[in-house]
C-alpha cells in the first residue's frame, strides 16, 4: 500500500523524532536538573501517552469515552501497590498494619500489570457500557470513573489501596538517574526514560492504527452499518479498542504516579479527563502527532509559560493590574477559546507529521460527513 507513497517524509520524520530524543538527552546532561523545562517534558510525555490512548478511542474508533482518569487511577494504584519496597510498607500503610501485599515485582512488570489491570476494568465496564452511543456512552464512562475513584478511597479496601491515604515510596523518574557510589548523579536519565516509555507505547498505538485492524476501527467510526455489512464485528472491535486504549491509559497512570512520586485517588478527578480531552481536541481529533504536540504545549502553558500571570509583576514602578492567583486560568481559557474558534479541527486536523512533509497529503482534506 505504501509502494506509491514517497518514503522521504517518513525518513525525515524518523530523523526528527531521533533528534528530539538526542536533544532531550543532551539538555538533561547540561542544564540544571531543577529547570522547569524537565518538569514540563516529563509531565508532557505522560500526558502525550494518555492523550494518544484517548485519541485511539475518540478519534479513530468514534467511541466518545470520558473514563480516562479512572483507568489512569487503576494503573497508578497497581503500579504503586506492587512497587513500594517491602521495608517501607509499614510506614506507608501505617493505618492498615503495613497492608496485605508484602512483595514487590520488577518495575517493568508492574507497569505492564498496571496496563492489564486497567484493561481488565475496561473489559468489565465495556460489557454493559459499549452498547450505548455517543453522549450516553460518555456519561456512563464518566460515572464509572467516579465510581472507581470512590472505591479506591474506601477504607474497606485499605489493606490493599491504603484507603484515602496516599501511596508513596515507590520508584519514580529520578530513580532512573545513574549515580556513582557517593550518590552523585553521573548520567541523568529521569526525562529520557519517560520519553522512551511513552514513545514505545505511542509507536505501538500507531502500528495498531495503521494495521488492517486499525482500518476496521476507522470504518466503524465512519459508518457502523456499512462496517457491519462488510463483516466487521462491531461489539468485538469496540471492546478491543476500549481495552487497548485503557491499557495504555493504565500505563500512563503508572507514569503519572512516577512523575508525582505519590498517588492519591482523590486527585484523579473528571477534571483530569477534561484536560486530556482538551489536549486531544486542540491537537486534532484523529491525529497522533497533534495529541503529542498539544500535550507538551498544554503542559508548558499551564505549568510554566503562564505562571507569571499568577504573581504580581512590576514594570518599573508600575504594578500590572489584574495579575493575581487564578488569573492564569482566565488567560488560559481565553487561549483555548481562540484555538477552538480559529482551528476548528485542532492544530493538526487529522494529519500526521509525515503528511505535513509530503505534498500529496497537503491537498488531502478531511471529507465532510
Amino acid at each position: 500500500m505504501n509502494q506509491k507513497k514517497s518514503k522521504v517524509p517518513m525518513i525525515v520524520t524518523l530523523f526528527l523524532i531521533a533528534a528530539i530524543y538526542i536533544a532531550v538527552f543532551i539538555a538533561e546532561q547540561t542544564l540544571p536538573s531543577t529547570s522547569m523545562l524537565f518538569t514540563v517534558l516529563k509531565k508532557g510525555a505522560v500526558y502525550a501517552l494518555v492523550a494518544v490512548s484517548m485519541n485511539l478511542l475518540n478519534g479513530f474508533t468514534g467511541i466518545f469515552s470520558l473514563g480516562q482518569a479512572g483507568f489512569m487511577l487503576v494503573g497508578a494504584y497497581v503500579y504503586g501497590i506492587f512497587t513500594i519496597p517491602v521495608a517501607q510498607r509499614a510506614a506507608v500503610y501505617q493505618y492498615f498494619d503495613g497492608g496485605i501485599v508484602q512483595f514487590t515485582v520488577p518495575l517493568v512488570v508492574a507497569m505492564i500489570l498496571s496496563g492489564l489491570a486497567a484493561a481488565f476494568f475496561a473489559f468489565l465496564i465495556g460489557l454493559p457500557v459499549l452498547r450505548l452511543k455517543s453522549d450516553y456512552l460518555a456519561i456512563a464512562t464518566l460515572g464509572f470513573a467516579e465510581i472507581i475513584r470512590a472505591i479506591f478511597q474506601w477504607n474497606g479496601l485499605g489493606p490493599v489501596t491504603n484507603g484515602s491515604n496516599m501511596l508513596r515510596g515507590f520508584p519514580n523518574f529520578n530513580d532512573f538517574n545513574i549515580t556513582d557510589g557517593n550518590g552523585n548523579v553521573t548520567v541523568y536519565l529521569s526525562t529520557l526514560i519517560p520519553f522512551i516509555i511513552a514513545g514505545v507505547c505511542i509507536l505501538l498505538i500507531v502500528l495498531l492504527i495503521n494495521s488492517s485492524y486499525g482500518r476496521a476501527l476507522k470504518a466503524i467510526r465512519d459508518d457502523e452499518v456499512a462496517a457491519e455489512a462488510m463483516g466487521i464485528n462491531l461489539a468485538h472491535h469496540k471492546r478491543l479498542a476500549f481495552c487497548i486504549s485503557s491499557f495504555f491509559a493504565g500505563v500512563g497512570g503508572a507514569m503519572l504516579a512516577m512523575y508525582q512520586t505519590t498517588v492519591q485517588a482523590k486527585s484523579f478527578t473528571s477534571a483530569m479527563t477534561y484536560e486530556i480531552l482538551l489536549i486531544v481536541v486542540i491537537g486534532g481529533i484523529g491525529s497522533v502527532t497533534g495529541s503529542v504536540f498539544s500535550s507538551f504545549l498544554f503542559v508548558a502553558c499551564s505549568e510554566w509559560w503562564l505562571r507569571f500571570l499568577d504573581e504580581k509583576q512590576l514594570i518599573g514602578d508600575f504594578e500590572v493590574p489584574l495579575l493575581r492567583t487564578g488569573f492564569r486560568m482566565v488567560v488560559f481559557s481565553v487561549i483555548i477559546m481562540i484555538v477552538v474558534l480559529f482551528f476548528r479541527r485542532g492544530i493538526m486536523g487529522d494529519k500526521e507529521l509525515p503528511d505535513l512533509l509530503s505534498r500529496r497529503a497537503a491537498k488531502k482534506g478531511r471529507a465532510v460527513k
Partner: protein
Amino acid sequence: MSLLKVTDLVVSYGGIEALKGISFEVDQGKIVTLIGANGAGKSTTLRTISGLVAPKSGRIYYEGRDITDFGTQKIVATGIAMVPEGRRVFANLTVLENLRIGAYLRTDKEVIEEDINYVYNLFPRLKERSWQLAGTLSGGEQQMLAVGRAIMTRPKIIMMDEPSLGLAPLVVKDIFKIIQTLKSTGMTVLLIEQNANAALHACDYAYVMETGRITMSGTGEELLASEAIQEAYLGKTNKD
C-alpha cells in the same frame, strides 16, 4: 437449484410486521429484482438476508444451506455481499482503504491484491482516485466504490439496495451498465429498486412487493407488458 431461497419470511419491528411472509428465489448468474413503493419491505428483506435484522419466522437458504441464524459476519464470509442504500462508503478512508475493508474477513493476501486490480480494471475511475478520500468522490463514483467494496468480499451474490437513489439520470444509466457488467462476469445480483422501469429492463426475473407481501412475479418482459404494473409503477394512465 437456486442460489438463494427465501421461504415465508416474517419480520416485525416492535409488533409491526414489515414482512408478512414472503418467498422468492434467486437463480445462479441471474439478475433478480424486487420492486415496490416506499415501505413495501424491500430494504427489510435485504437487511434480513444479510443478518442485520433477525426474522420472526421463515427460513433463508443459500446453496441449500440454512443461513437464517448465521449472523452477519458468517453470512458475508459465505459469499453474500451487500451494497447498502445510500452507498455508505467510508468517507474518511481512501478509495484503496475502502476496498481493503471489503476484504477484511479474508486472509488470502495475494488474491486480495489481484482482486483490487480486478476492481480497478472494472472501474478505471477508481484506480485514478485510489488515494482520494471516498467522501470526496462524486455520487456515481461512490456507487462504483460501494460495488467494488462488495466485490472485495469475494461474493457469489451481490445484493444492491436502491443503487440509483439520488443520482442523476445519466449516472443511473452507468449504474445499470455496472450491473450488466457484473452479470457478464458470472455474478448473481439481487437488486432492489424504486426505478421500476430501469430495473425491469435490466433484470431476468422480478418480484413486485406491496406492504410486506409479494403480489406479482415474472420475467422483466412479462411485467413490463402487464397493465397493472404499467399503471402502478410505470406511470401509464388508462385513458380508455
